[in-house]
């Protein structure tokens, strides 16, 4: 997908990759905190708050707990972090240079998006902490719950456009035939399913079951401090930006347009409103919700797409 060494570096580290995603992601978490504060009739933190949090964590001691598996404990944060940087780069590059996309990069992105959750499971299991272990087990259950529905929703798009599995191809199809969202009921259903799965994938209330600070302290993050915790916070923030952008690429033509800001803001505010008006689900409730109504809905979407609606 990349051609020249120096430009590769620029793409990966500066523009669609690391630096851009970090800044956009941290600003999104600020929007999250500020809107939540306004909903609770508070003033809320200043815009630089997430940056201050990360800078402070970078300056603090990173403790490796006694008896923890050192290698897994230290590698875990970076697994999810790298994955999100790669996803962001692949998705934006496909939008900016549709020719840079390769066949099957949709599948690569889907696999890479598993990694932040897997990193959490590794982190929780490696930290030798009962809360971490419980959080890891819950994260595993949650993953099993939402992934099937999300996968069917993404593949509704593939069925609908006649089997194109590269992001560039999907964007080209949308450029020729209009946004996926305007192509019939199946895609609208699929988009609704992705909206329902997004808080679960991001670990945001009502699906912050793994982190659950009122029951599990901080779940898999419990033993993390300093730089390692900062990397986890960054991963979460970047995912909050990258996942909606990926979904917009699939459903709303292209993200390489100023309209993206509006679309992204709408999705973000939807996630924040859901977060603020809902309590946390129990893990069995979340499993039932995703396996029955949401999976049913996404199967309906894929069947409708197969018959051409």
């Amino acid at each position, binding site marked *: 997908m990349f051609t020249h060494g120096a430009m590769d570096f620029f793409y990966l580290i500066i523009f669609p990759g690391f630096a851009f995603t970090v800044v956009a992601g941290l600003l999104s978490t600020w929007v999250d905190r500020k809107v939540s504060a306004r909903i609770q009739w508070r003033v809320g*933190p200043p815009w630089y708050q997430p940056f*201050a949090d990360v*800078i*402070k964590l970078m300056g603090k001691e990173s*403790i490796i707990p006694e008896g923890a598996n050192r290698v897994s404990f230290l590698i875990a944060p970076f697994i999810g972090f790298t994955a999100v940087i790669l996803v962001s780069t692949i998705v934006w590059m496909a939008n900016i240079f549709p020719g840079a996309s390769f066949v099957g990069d949709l599948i690569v992105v889907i696999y890479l998006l598993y990694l932040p959750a897997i990193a959490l499971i590794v982190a929780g299991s490696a930290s030798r902490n009962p809360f971490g272990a419980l959080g890891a087990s819950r994260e595993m259950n949650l993953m099993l719950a939402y992934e099937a529905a999300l996968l069917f929703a993404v593949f509704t798009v593939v069925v609908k456009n006649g089997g194109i599995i590269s992001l560039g191809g999907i964007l080209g199809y949308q450029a020729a035939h209009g946004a996926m969202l305007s192509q019939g009921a199946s895609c609208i259903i699929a988009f609704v399913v992705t909206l329902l799965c997004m808080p679960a994938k991001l670990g945001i209330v009502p699906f912050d079951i793994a982190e659950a600070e009122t029951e599990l302290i901080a779940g898999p993050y*419990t033993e993390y401090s300093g730089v390692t915790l900062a990397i986890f916070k960054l991963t979460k923030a970047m995912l909050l930006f990258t996942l909606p952008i990926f979904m917009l690429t699939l459903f709303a033509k292209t993200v390489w347009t100023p309209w993206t800001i509006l679309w992204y803001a709408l999705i973000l505010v939807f996630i924040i409103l859901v977060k603020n008006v809902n309590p946390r689900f129990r893990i069995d409730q979340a499993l039932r919700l995703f396996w029955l109504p949401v999976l049913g809905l996404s199967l309906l979407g894929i069947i409708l797409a197969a018959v051409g609606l």
Partner: protein
Amino acid sequence: MGNNNHRLSGIKKWGFKKSPWVFHLSTGSCNNCDIEILDALTPRFDLERFGILLVGTPRHADILLVTGVVTVQALPRLLHVYEQAAKPCMGVAIGACACSCGIFDGGYHVVGPVDKIIPVDVYIPGCPPKPEAIISGVVKALAKL
């Protein structure tokens, strides 16, 4: 124990000042100071304006809010939590008991006050101190950086 010597500079200091996460620990208090701490964290005072967040684990904490005389039972727990906290971590003693053992001074179960066990940066007197006093104390702790 003497006072902490937190010497931070530049951007590290800025980050620490703008984002102090607090961990709340009761070492045998009567719960009154704890309720005042919770009051200070409500939307009425909105401490998130200053980046102050309540965290659930000492690993994430920058400031330990300690209430209560340190009882014999609480002593090992207090030491444990202080050792678990990622440094630099400041100690704030909240309430008359934490500052000086108050009316429990000399009791058979009392080991404290808190500054005998862990380094304390700021003392907030009162039985209990008002939320305003707690906020002002935390601000003074940050001013020491």
